[in-house]
């Protein structure tokens, strides 16, 4: 706690309250045949409730590793991650994950995929209520009509919608998305970005999302966390994205500030921390 330099992490004025999710001096070291390999070295980040955080950085710098320590799939070698002052030790439905490859169970319908989570997390709710929650969240992502389809009958965008519905149906405190739209075509991707924003503002869930797309980050995030290159990667810079909400893609792209921020991010990624092979 004492090492946290919160002053550097300016948070938007719209948000108030205590630190919600704290990444406290976290390092991750993998043992490898050639000796220990430090992927992340002393990461500090404080996220406030309801914030939308995007994470950007070159491939292999450790973004997934960092978010995996938030979702609990991996454990920090040093330091800790706390959600509402409670140390994170394992995965749980309060930090739902949306995976890049959807991770839907192929033998279950869209409805059953969503229902499985609800049934598992709220075993004591009456069945009718669980069904209603599942249907409500499928409707929320516009898939009420596709509820009985199996994943292979759904397009990539639809699959990712089911995955988002499955996550949000559990009312998570934090939504963790690892390049959720990376595999989608640009049009579907923009649609899903808009839906995600709407869901986020309706649910007031805290979002951590990895992206490779600066425009996506500028459209979605309150703050953009830019990581330096590995090994021993760190947070290089945190950019505040001040556009008012609700955001309109066309409108913010007319804002000269948009290009300032965009250039700043490009400068960070391709000049100051250019990848060796790029």
């Amino acid at each position, binding site marked *: 706690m004492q090492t946290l330099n919160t002053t550097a992490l300016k948070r938007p004025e719209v948000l108030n309250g205590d630190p919600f999710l704290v990444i406290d001096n976290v390092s991750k070291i993998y043992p490898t045949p050639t000796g220990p390999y430090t992927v992340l070295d002393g990461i500090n980040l404080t996220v406030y409730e309801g914030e939308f955080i995007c994470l950007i950085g070159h491939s292999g710098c450790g973004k997934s590793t960092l978010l995996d320590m938030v979702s609990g799939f991996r454990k920090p070698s040093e330091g800790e991650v706390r959600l509402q002052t409670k140390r994170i030790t394992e995965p749980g439905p309060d930090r739902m994950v949306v995976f890049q490859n959807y991770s839907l169970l*192929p033998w279950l319908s869209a409805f059953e995929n969503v229902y499985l989570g609800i049934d598992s997390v709220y075993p004591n709710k009456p069945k009718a209520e669980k069904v209603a929650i599942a249907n409500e969240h499928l409707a929320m992502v516009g898939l009420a009509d596709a509820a009985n389809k199996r994943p292979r009958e759904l397009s990539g965008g639809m699959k990712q919608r089911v995955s988002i519905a499955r996550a949000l149906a559990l009312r998570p405190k934090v939504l963790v998305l690892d390049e959720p739209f990376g595999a989608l075509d640009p049009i579907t991707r923009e649609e899903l970005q808009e839906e995600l924003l709407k869901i986020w503002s309706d649910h007031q869930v805290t979002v951590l999302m990895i992206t490779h797309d600066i425009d996506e980050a500028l459209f979605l995030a309150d703050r953009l966390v830019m990581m330096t290159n590995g090994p021993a990667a760190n947070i290089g810079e945190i950019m505040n994205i001040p556009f008012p909400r609700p955001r309109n893609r066309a409108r913010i792209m007319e804002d000269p500030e948009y290009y300032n921020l965009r250039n700043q991010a490009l400068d960070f990624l391709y000049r100051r921390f250019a990848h060796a092979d790029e």
Partner: protein
Amino acid sequence: MTVLGSRSKKSSKLGKAMPAVTKYVVPPLVAIAVILVIWQLIFSGPDANLPGPITVLQETWDPLIIDPFFDYGGTNKGLGLQILASLGRVAIGFSLAAIVGIALGILVGISPFVYRALDPLFQVLRTVPPLAWLPLSLAALQQSDPSAIFVIFITAIWPIIINTTVGVQQIPQDYRNVAKVLRLSGPKFFWKILLPSAVPYIFTGLRIGIGLSWLAIVAAEMLTGGVGIGFFIWDAYNSSRLSEIILALVYVGIVGLILDRLVAFVASKVVPEEQKG
């Protein structure tokens, strides 16, 4: 389908010119006819060691072919009854192997420790030829029937265990992660993730297992005696009824094929559509 273009057009033209019956039934019939003719030519001389096909038919027509279910007491029974007796043993031995094998395979697949402990053992034991177990089981069980069933069991169980284990181990990490983040209970994980994901592998094991069972029962029965197709063949050999052996072999082959197809059919009904390769 419609966009497949020239290839699908060509094959559909071919399909019209040559219906499925002509395409898949005629060639094997021709092959069988050719083999029968060659066989007949080779063994038609007066001092041939084996009967030709015509002799086989003549010698086995009454009563073996026309009445598969006659029962003159003792082991003197129709081939239908002999095969049913063998199938009965296979049914018991194979069912036990399936139950124990799937359960063990899942256990071994779930626990890396159990895997490390038992897998080397399985790898050695599975190479033991089925009949090598027979003396041991006769000594232990004292009776021929349970011994034959044990041989089936021990023959069929290895591929079932090993394939089930692989099926459980290959459950994609993605699904395991979903289970973790949803905190799925053991039974839910079992029914919603483990079983659907492992079931194609389980059926591969079952299919190999049933084939080996049928191979083993014929051999085991030759040694243990009693009613059954294996002993029937051995008995026929001892009384030089070679035509009966040949007829029995044909039946053994057909039953083996049916067993294999039966398991494949059950698999096609049980394996989730999404899991079919």
